[in-house]
């Protein structure tokens, strides 16, 4: 524990937090909500002979407890951590913190762990209720450990989201709203993609342990799904944290190196490998692409949120994506799908061909020309997203306008991705680069998509340059 106490931020935050009445009320409220939930479930289920006969009453209660705790974490963690840096900014203490020799990594780690340690305390409060479920039977130790591990990892991820937003947003209110939206997005993603993969399903913090989703196959071995889920959440947390550290360096020193982004590309490879290893259930490789594209959209939103603190000269901000500017995010994000696609192509050849009855058509559908098509459309889309965001930023003089423009564009890609499976219209690939993988889309559809998005980018660039032109005096 010594290393924890060596970080002054953790000590100060915990000291300050535990002194307030708010902390005591939060602990009390948390325990009451969980107790009421478990109590109500027990009262309604105790006469259910089926449950009693099968010895599943404890498991039912534990499932309810896990779900309630998961939802409470979704509600509490963003609220706890979203004021981490924005609160310092509002309280005019950020300068004193930034001028100290504490590194950006120590600052972010301190804020993150201070919030997470309090959440762990909250989770500890639920242990007596867990013991009650344990006594009733039907709950195994591995189930308990798995559920708490996933929830603790999720709490860390949610805190990372919130700390990242608190560094990016000017006010705590904005940071809180964005944190809840991001947590909501993460939960929606896991919920929608969870049916395809045991790992993704197990990563949902509201799921108790379930036998049918308990295991996944890694390199021919059965591995507990909660373990791979914790790994998945850990990778996502690491990505978000590294971006947050990069953002902290940008705000404090005005410089961001490319190192975190290259590092993240490596993480993307690991993620792809992790997904590739999980070939249980009825999943197919479109899910992997969806995972990567969704993460890409999130990363793009974080990275392109504006370079207001950098104060780079305007012309540089428009086109020099690569020079220590978060606007280079589109290029970085393009790396992620590339990695995903490489992994996908490799896996199609090595794994899926051997397993799927329609392997020949699969091979055809996922051949390299189609991968190249997808990359072209993705690049055009991201270029358009970056430039439209910048345009909005300049025209409206609100960084948020740029952010929302980006989000709108990115979700216009992401949402059709989720439901595009049955669509065969060629224009569909205009909004959904993933559609380019379909063998029946043809080159014309890809061409339409690239031209459309490059047109959007060119229009945004032209309007941006016009807006930047000096206005005649008087």
């Amino acid at each position, binding site marked *: 524990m010594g290393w924890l106490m060596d970080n002054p931020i953790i000590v100060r935050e915990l000291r300050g937090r535990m002194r307030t009445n708010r902390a005591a009320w939060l602990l009390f409220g948390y325990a009451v909500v969980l107790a009421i939930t478990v109590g109500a479930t027990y009262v309604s289920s105790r006469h259910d002979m089926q449950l009693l006969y099968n010895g599943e009453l404890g498991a039912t209660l534990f499932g309810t407890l896990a779900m309630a705790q998961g939802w409470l974490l979704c509600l509490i963690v963003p609220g706890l951590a979203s004021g981490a840096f924005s609160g310092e900014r509002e309280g005019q*203490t950020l300068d004193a913190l930034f001028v100290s020799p504490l590194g950006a990594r120590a600052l972010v780690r301190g804020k993150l762990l201070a919030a997470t340690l309090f959440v762990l305390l909250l989770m500890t409060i639920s242990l007596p209720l867990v013991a009650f479920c344990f006594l009733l039977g039907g709950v195994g130790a591995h189930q308990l450990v798995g559920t708490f591990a996933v929830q603790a990892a999720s709490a860390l991820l949610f805190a990372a989201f919130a700390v990242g937003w608190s560094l990016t947003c000017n006010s705590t209110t904005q940071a809180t709203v964005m944190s809840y939206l991001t947590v909501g997005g993460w939960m929606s993603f896991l919920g929608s993609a969870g049916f395809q993969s045991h790992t993704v399903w197990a990563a949902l913090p509201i799921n108790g342990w379930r036998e049918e989703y308990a295991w996944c196959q890694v390199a021919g071995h059965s591995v507990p799904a909660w373990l791979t889920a914790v790994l998945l959440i850990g990778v996502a947390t690491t990505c978000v944290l590294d971006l947050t550290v990069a953002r902290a360096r940008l705000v404090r020193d005005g410089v961001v190196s490319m190192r975190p982004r290259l590092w993240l590309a490596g993480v993307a490879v690991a993620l792809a490998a992790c997904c590739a290893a999980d070939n249980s259930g009825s999943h197919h490789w479109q899910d992997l692409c969806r995972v990567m594209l969704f993460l890409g959209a999130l990363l793009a939103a974080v990275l392109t949120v504006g370079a207001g603190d950098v104060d780079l000269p305007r012309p540089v901000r428009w086109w020099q994506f690569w020079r220590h500017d978060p606007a280079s995010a589109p290029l970085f994000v393009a790396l992620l799908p590339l990695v995903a696609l490489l992994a996908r192509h490799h896996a199609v050849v090595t794994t899926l061909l051997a397993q799927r009855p329609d392997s020949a058509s699969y091979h055809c559908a996922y051949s390299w020309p189609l991968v190249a098509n997808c990359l072209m459309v993705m690049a055009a889309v991201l270029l358009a997203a970056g430039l439209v965001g910048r345009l909005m930023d300049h025209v409206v003089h609100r960084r948020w306008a740029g952010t929302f423009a980006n989000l709108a564009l990115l979700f216009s890609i992401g949402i059709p991705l989720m439901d595009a499976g049955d669509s065969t219209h060629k224009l569909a690939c205009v909004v959904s680069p993933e559609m380019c993988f379909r063998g029946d889309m043809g080159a014309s559809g890809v061409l339409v998509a690239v031209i459309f998005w490059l047109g959007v980018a060119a229009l945004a660039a032209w309007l941006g340059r016009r807006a930047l032109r000096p206005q005649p005096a008087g």
Partner: protein
Amino acid sequence: MLDLVNLTKTYRDLTAVDSLSLHLEPGEIFGFIGPNGAGKTTTIKMIATLVRPTDGEARVNDISVVAHPEQVRAIIGYMPDYFGVYDDVRVWEYLDFFASAYRIPRADRPRLIADVLELTDLNVKRNAFVEELSRGMKQRLCLAKTLLHDPVLLLLDEPASGLDPRARIEMRELLRQLRRMGKTIFISSHILTELADFCTTIGIIEAGRLIASGSVEEIIKQTGLTRTLEIRATQGLELVETILRDNPLVHDVVLDSESDRCQVSFAGELDDVADLLKCLLDRGVRVVQAVESASDLEDIFLRVTRGQVA
């Protein structure tokens, strides 16, 4: 100790600091004067590594603030103009937090905290919550925090702003004590009389440009300005006027017969003032008082600047 070479900061179309060059020796107390919006805070923030210069260079102890900000942070103490404090901690906990942030060994912290509390006269408030302190005490606490790691350069941005007269005097006394301790101090203020008798050198900034720097004497010499002397004699004011007007360094003389005083605009240096007074005494004038007007710095400031902001 501190070298600024063509330091420039632009915010899009606005040049906040324009090619500012400066050199400070160890132990020097530099008063940075300028109207609101002149670029004082931006300059100090650039030295404090909080704002990245658009161009030029700033070096503290020959360490570049751009290339090695983390090394610079360890040797400077920065007190911002507007600052907040953590209200939910006690005074010693607040100082302990920053001592830990500055990597001061745990064993050394109690002694250091006691020392800075003694220096800032906050010993009695050691266990009080920070939120219970007055504005002046918070200001001193902030200064105490700034001194914890024994910085070689202190950057104080308007340290006395928002204080009542008593707190202002206390702060001034504290700064004098720091000067006696041999600290190098870069202090900004727009209240000129605060700095007049305190700084070894001053710099005047307007619209982002350093328009004059050096000691008060040097600036008077550089800019061709006059100093104002107030001479009181018990009799013979007409003779005094005659003698004064004969001196080529005297630009103007204004008599006030009712109070036996005259205001003299004098272009000479301190030795010339002594010669002038000796001349008066030699000619039999009974000089009761001869003082240099305290508003000299204000006069310099008003004459040098043109009321522009960056």
